[in-house]
């Protein structure tokens, strides 16, 4: 038998609750009654069973997913793609905790939002029995009853103070085209966005940005406001190599010096030249020419002072490291590089 939906509007909570009581006595089950209101009334106020609440549970699941995401970002990725960073552990705990906190919270709240959508079956595009006066403070009682009972229910609503009535025959469930279109659009947008990001990230789509950054109007390295040099001064740019003399006071290659050098090497050189100094690091592919193999004979044949100058001034694609290493530290590194000889 066809079902009929009847919607009545009430002014206040008390008559609404009374009417619901009468409908229940008539044999209309609770799940066939829907109450709509412009403000949240408690179920007790209207004599209604408490609706199922699962959003909190869903957000808990979201928290778990957030935790897993965080663990993957902080531990997983770095175990998969280790990148040596100056003797620090690859997966240090304190920063990991910060990231975990944020991803857990992100998961919790996003899940609460999507839980809200899912539990309410949002979005709804098909027409539903409703009355715009509900957002003006009226309370709507919607009863779904069999056609035979319809007239009786209507008069109960009216007698108890319902001032507007609407009746509609329930239509059998149809798939809603607009809803499908909506979710298809959302999915399409996500896929498109992801694809474009990855295409750019993988340099498939190369965007050439115009930039004159290299020639910008700025003050050069370490050039501050300073007094001009005396007229008789000889202009030089940084340290130079004078034949037969060390570039600065060398540090003897003691075991301590080599040990210090090893540590400094892992902090300042290993990112490019690789932890083993053989020129293999995740970054080396991005340099032409590649960072040299420091264990190779041509490099080991360089004098200490030449390596000292390379560290101090840089060479080609290699930046100068004068800011990172003091003169004595540079010698420590050189002493360590010497131990790398094959």
């Amino acid at each position, binding site marked *: 038998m066809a079902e009929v939906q009847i919607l009545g509007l009430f*002014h206040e909570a*008390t008559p609404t609750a009374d009417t619901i009581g009468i409908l229940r006595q008539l044999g209309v089950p609770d799940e066939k009654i829907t*109450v*709509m*209101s*412009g*403000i*949240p*009334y*408690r179920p007790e*106020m209207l004599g*209604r069973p*408490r*609706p199922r609440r699962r*959003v*909190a549970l869903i*957000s808990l699941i979201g928290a778990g997913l957030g935790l897993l995401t965080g663990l993957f*970002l902080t531990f997983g990725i*770095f175990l998969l*793609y280790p*990148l040596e*960073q100056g003797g*620090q552990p690859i997966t240090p705990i304190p*920063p*990991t905790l910060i990231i975990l906190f*944020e*991803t857990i919270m*992100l998961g*919790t*709240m*996003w899940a*609460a*939002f999507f*839980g*809200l*959508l899912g*539990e*309410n079956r*949002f*979005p*709804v*595009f098909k027409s539903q029995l*409703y009355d715009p*006066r*509900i*957002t*003006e403070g009226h309370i709507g009682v919607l009863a779904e009853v069999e056609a035979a009972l319809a007239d009786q229910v209507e008069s109960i609503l009216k007698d108890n103070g319902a001032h507007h009535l609407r009746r509609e025959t329930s239509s059998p469930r149809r798939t809603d085209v607009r809803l499908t279109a909506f979710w298809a659009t959302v999915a399409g947008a996500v896929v498109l966005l992801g694809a474009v*990001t*990855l295409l*750019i*990230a*993988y340099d498939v789509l190369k965007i050439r940005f*115009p*930039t*004159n*950054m290299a020639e910008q*109007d*700025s*003050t050069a390295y370490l050039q*501050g406001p300073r007094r001009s040099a005396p007229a008789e001064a000889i202009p030089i740019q940084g340290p130079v190599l004078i034949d037969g003399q060390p570039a600065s006071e060398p540090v003897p290659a003691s075991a301590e010096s080599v040990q210090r050098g090893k540590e400094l090497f892992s902090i300042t050189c290993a990112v490019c030249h690789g932890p083993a100094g053989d020129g293999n690091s995740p970054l080396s592919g991005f340099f032409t020419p590649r960072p040299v193999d420091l264990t190779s004979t041509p490099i080991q044949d360089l004098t200490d002072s030449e390596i000292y100058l390379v560290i101090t001034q840089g060479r080609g694609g290699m930046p100068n490291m004068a800011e990172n290493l003091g003169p004595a530290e540079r010698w420590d590194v050189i002493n360590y590089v010497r131990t790398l000889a094959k």
Partner: protein
Amino acid sequence: METTHDVPIWRRPPPEDTELSHQLEHERRQHLLLDPRYPLDIDGGVLKPMYRHTWRFWLVTALLAGLVLLFGAIWTTQMILGLGITGLNRPVMWALYIVNFVYFIGIGHAGTFISAALRVLKIEWRRPISRAAETLTVFALIAAAMFPVVHVGRAWKAYWLLPIPTQREIWPSYHSPLIWDFTAIFTYLTCSILFAYIGLLPDLAMARDHTIGWRHRLYEVLALGWRGTEREWANQETALNVFSYAIIPVMFSVHTIVSWDFAMAVQPGWHSTVFGPYFVIGALFSGAGAVIMALVLIRKAMHLEYFLRDEHFDGMGKFLLLLSLTWAYFYFNDYLVPWYGQEPVEKVLHQLLATGSAAPLWFLMIFCNVVLPWTTLWSRRVRTSIPAIFTISVLIQVGMYLERYIIIPVTLGRNEFPYSWGVYLPNWPESLITVGAFALIGLLYVLFSRIFPMIPVWEVYEGQVLQGLRRIGRALVPTKAEPGD
């Protein structure tokens, strides 16, 4: 007071006793929640101003839009010519852009605090102001999130922050505070938007029911089919509760992490353990001031006098005073250890602020953040005077902006090596970009206020239904029904 239960609250007759009836009049003038009106009038009071497009509105919009375009133009110029066109130079490589970043993130704290914390604490006067505050949070965060990108110069490399696989096979390093920043701000921004949206749903339905044309279609889609069924309300309440409890610690984490951008560096004046809580309080302080400014402006521009009353400015004013006291306490703590420690470089910094070239900035900051609020805000007359509280809020913005300015470029000018001391002066590009960022927030706010209801109508209704007056002896006393959990 006797009420008949089947008469709607806005139609209940006043008591017959004239004295009680006067008291009722008085309470109604004071409290929005005790002054129920016919709901259609309330809906109208929120919806009608959205249609008001006076010449003033267009003038303001055009002005703000112009400044935003200028922002875009200068940013493009800076990308092409390089950061050298700004005043940045050694040793001050962090300056106005980072000041803006910290300042706008700070503004973004008050909104959440007001709508989440006051919601959890069930403070009733928050009801009409939560939307205006949440909106400010979202827009301030958007502006703030742009600044690190402006600051790094090569903005098109911003996607390096995202943990996505790339041809470089290098992932963002979670050792770096800047990645903590990114993660925290991403969480905070997206969740603030969702939080505001969930609270907006019933109002979008209200707007849908009372509009026609493109607005109707827009609200119809955005309201997602909201009808206000019991299930919808119950789920919405749970979701709002989850958000309120979860977003407060996130808010604390965001500004703590912003402070760690500084505190993790071995720069004198920055390397301080108290920076985290101190920044959080500063953020709330400037944010609360900004919310007051926003409330005053929308109240005036959109004629929301019915909704935004003395009680709201009074409450916000007390909040501001409390935050000023707390801020001063943390600020003092931040000085105490270096002062006692007497490190030479810290002494240099203190002298720079107390008697040196930065002294005018420092004293102006102390005036705006401490002297002014402490001497005025204890008075209810000042708190409820709109011009007074607005002026105080503006000056607090000045003070808090100066505070960040002192922490960043002024402090960076001094370090352990006197040979590399320097002074930073803002150049025109970063100055105009700063102006443009303020304009951007203003523009977004103005446009938003014409499209979305700025007062959470359903929260006001709910409050009006739950609040009432109870007669105790000769007096009518406001009471609140607090049903269930």
